[in-house]
Structures are given as structure tokens and as C-alpha cells.
């Protein structure tokens, strides 16, 4: 048969790509399961800070008052950024003892946007979900760990594609969805593996590849920054990090110039990689479900507080931003998250049954024969 060799080759590709990424994929699926419900679990574990009830339309204080309050609470420390809550009149301020923050080493203060009253203060700590997230994201190995998992995602995609190819010889004699449950366990699990694997291909490919794209976030953002910032900083060469100008003024300027965009956060002038030493970065998002995913930074010159640069976000960062919800499944309410979790569990079953089939086949006396084309008929005997 002409195809026998080709099928054997694809079967081998499927076996080895699966074995290579198996352990990491299992880890990603298991840690991913609680992460799907990240928001719900956080709400449950942590006391949600609510803004006190005041008459509607109560005026908000300038954002500069929030910075002043944070500086009064932690004198001599560095204010890194402000987050404007969209649903409630709350502002969170991130404060760090060092100019360039160490991961996890900062305080997050929650303030009432109308009174600058301190409502909450979160010391640097790692909750359970943060630890689960770190394992899922980089296994506590930083960028190398992240990129490694990205590579595993790519191997996983190859394993899925080769799995689709070998699905054909396995199913040549069977109706779609056949599970020979009364046959040997091996045949039963082979059929289950095939059925569950083939119906979830689109989802696993989408989540796998968007996850892989996510691992490139840091390098891609650095790339953009490396292209953009030197040009913007050319006139300021050699100057120290600028002082914080009027943040409220900058935000109002952005709102006036881009009335259809919502301000979500402001990054202070910083030498750290998430901002610019001579600009306030005012982050904005769109108002529709799709454009809300597209963050657009507006850079306001910190020296004059007036010049606004709205750099065009490059296609690769737009791709990254669209790929995020497709990985997290957080864009269609709780029912979508539940579907996400069910598909994740199905993927775990596919992975585990895959290992089982590999082990069972190695033990089987018929191991010399490929379990493709003709072998399925004898496998149950």
C-alpha cells in the first residue's frame, strides 16, 4: 500500500510531538482550569473594596490628589502608575520602594476618587491564584520559562495536526463517533481519544496558538518600545527621569483630543521597561467589546505636559491583544467560561488517554504493527 509508510511517519510524528509536550500540556490544562475562573475565585477569596455611597454626580478630585495621598502614606517611595476603575469611582495607585520595581515588590493602594480617602492597602503578597498563574505562565522561570512553554505550544499544535492526519486511517472503517466500549480497554480508549480529540481540534488549536502568542508578549512589547522610544527621547538625551507633571491635566488633554476613548490607567515617567522616562503614558481603550481589547497608549510629554503622541500600535501587538481573550475565554460571560472549563477537561482526557494508549501499545505483543490501517481490526480480538 502506497500510504502505509506515510501513515506510519505521521503516526510517529504524532507520538513523539505528543510525548515531548505531554507533561507541560497536562500542567497547563490543570492550572488553566482554575485560572478560567480567576475573577470569580478572586472575588470569593478577597474582600472586594466598594466605594461608599454618595449622591450621584459627586465630583471627583484631580488625580494629582491621589498621587499626593499615596506619597503621604509612603514618603520617599516611587509612584509607578494609576488605575482608573471603570465601574466604580475608585483609583488604585501602585507604589514601589525602588525606582524600577522588583516583581511583586510594591504596594497597591485603593482610593476613593471623590475624597482621596484610603480604602484599601494591599501589601506585596502572592495569593494562591498568583502562584497558579506563575506556574501556568513561566513555571517561575521568568522569560526563558515563558518562551519554553511557547515552544511547547508549538509542538502541541504539531501534535494536533498530525493527530488529525492519523485520524483518517483509524476511522476508515468506523462511523463518526463510534466507541467500541465492549471491546478491550485499549480499543475503547482509542475510540474515545479519537472522538474527543477530533471534535475539540478548533478549540485546542485556538487556545494553544493564542497561548503561544501570549508568551511572546514581553519580547514583542520590548521590540515596539525599542523602535518607538529612542525617536521620542532624542530631544531629551541625557536628561534624568522627568518629575511627575499634572496627571489630571494630561488625562483631560487626552480625553479632549480623543473623546471616543476611555482612559484606563496612567504610567508615571519611569526608567522601567513599561514606560518612558520623559512621558506620562495614558492608556486608553475603545468602548465596544472588540475595541475594548485594543489598548492604545497616548504619550504626553512630561516636560511641557502638552505634547501628545499617539503612536500607531503595530500589527503584531494588535494580534497579541486579540489573542488574549481567545486564550482566557473571558469574553462571553460565565457560560463561556464554563464551556471553556469543559473543553479543558476534555483535553485532559485526550492527553491522559493518549499516554495510556502509548503505554498499552508498548506492552502489547502486536507493538511491531502500526496501530493504523489494518491493526484496529485485530486490536480488539
Amino acid at each position, binding site marked *: 500500500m502506497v500510504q502505509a509508510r506515510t501513515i506510519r511517519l505521521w503516526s510517529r510524528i504524532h507520538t513523539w510531538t505528543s510525548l515531548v509536550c505531554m507533561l507541560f500540556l497536562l500542567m497547563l490544562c490543570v492550572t488553566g482550569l482554575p485560572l478560567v475562573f480567576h475573577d470569580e475565585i478572586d472575588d470569593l477569596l478577597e474582600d472586594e473594596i466598594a466605594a461608599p455611597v454618595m449622591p450621584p454626580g459627586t465630583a471627583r478630585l484631580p488625580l494629582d490628589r491621589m498621587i499626593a495621598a499615596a506619597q503621604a502614606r509612603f514618603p520617599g517611595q516611587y509612584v509607578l502608575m494609576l488605575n482608573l476603575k471603570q465601574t466604580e469611582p475608585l483609583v488604585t495607585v501602585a507604589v514601589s520602594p525602588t525606582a524600577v520595581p522588583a516583581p511583586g515588590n510594591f504596594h497597591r493602594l485603593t482610593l476613593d476618587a471623590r475624597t482621596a480617602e484610603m480604602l484599601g492597602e494591599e501589601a506585596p503578597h502572592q495569593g494562591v491564584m498568583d502562584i497558579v498563574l506563575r506556574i501556568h505562565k513561566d513555571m517561575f522561570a521568568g522569560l526563558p520559562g515563558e518562551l519554553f512553554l511557547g515552544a511547547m505550544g508549538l509542538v502541541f499544535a504539531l501534535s494536533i495536526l498530525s493527530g488529525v492526519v492519523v485520524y483518517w486511517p483509524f476511522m476508515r472503517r468506523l462511523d463518526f463517533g463510534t466507541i467500541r466500549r465492549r471491546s478491550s480497554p485499549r480499543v475503547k480508549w482509542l475510540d474515545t481519544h479519537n*472522538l474527543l480529540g477530533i471534535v475539540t481540534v478548533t478549540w485546542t488549536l485556538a487556545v494553544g496558538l493564542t497561548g503561544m502568542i501570549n508568551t511572546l508578549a514581553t519580547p514583542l512589547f520590548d521590540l515596539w518600545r525599542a523602535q518607538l522610544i529612542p525617536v521620542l527621547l532624542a530631544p531629551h538625551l541625557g536628561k534624568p527621569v522627568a518629575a511627575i507633571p499634572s496627571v489630571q491635566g494630561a488625562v483631560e488633554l487626552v480625553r479632549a483630543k480623543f473623546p471616543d476613548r476611555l482612559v484606563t490607567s496612567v504610567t508615571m515617567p519611569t526608567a522601567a521597561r513599561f514606560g518612558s522616562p520623559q512621558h506620562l503614558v495614558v492608556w486608553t481603550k475603545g468602548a465596544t467589546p472588540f475595541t475594548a481589547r485594543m489598548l492604545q497608549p497616548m504619550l504626553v510629554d512630561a516636560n511641557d505636559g502638552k505634547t501628545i503622541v499617539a503612536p500607531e500600535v503595530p500589527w503584531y501587538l494588535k494580534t497579541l491583544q486579540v489573542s488574549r481573550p481567545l486564550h482566557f475565554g473571558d469574553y462571553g460571560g460565565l457560560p463561556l467560561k464554563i464551556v471553556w472549563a469543559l473543553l479543558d477537561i476534555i483535553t485532559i482526557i485526550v492527553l491522559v488517554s493518549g499516554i495510556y494508549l502509548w503505554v498499552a501499545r508498548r506492552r502489547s505483543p502486536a507493538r511491531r504493527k502500526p496501530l493504523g490501517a489494518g491493526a484496529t481490526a485485530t486490536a480488539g480480538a
Partner: protein
Amino acid sequence: MRSSVPGADAQNRTRLHRSAWAVFRVPLVVGVICAAGLGLALVGDGIWDGLSWLALSLPVALAGFYWRRAGRSR
């Protein structure tokens, strides 16, 4: 070899070599529906979210349906 579906065995034997089209027809439809489901919730809220839930539930429903069917036919 015993088949889980009565009568399907004989039927299977008569069609030894199905074409790729015959094998991949149903998975292709499922795949396209899922892809639509992934996209729909991204474009809007409300009805779009609902359609997306339905579309992406399809693999789960199929898995459940065929697993139960295999268990019943003895």
C-alpha cells in the same frame, strides 16, 4: 471484533476504505461551527454571546452523546 452499534459492524465491513471526505465531513462541520463560536463572542454581547455558547458546547454535547450511546448498546 464486536461492535458497539448493532448492525454497524456488517455495514462497516462493506465499506472498507472510506474517502478522506467521508471521514472528515462531520469533524469539518464541527470545526467550522466552533471557529464561528470563538469569533461570535468577540464581535458583540447579548445574542452573540449566546450563539457562541451554543456553538462551543457542540463538542461537549457530541462527546457526551456518543459516550452514552456506546454505553447503552450492549
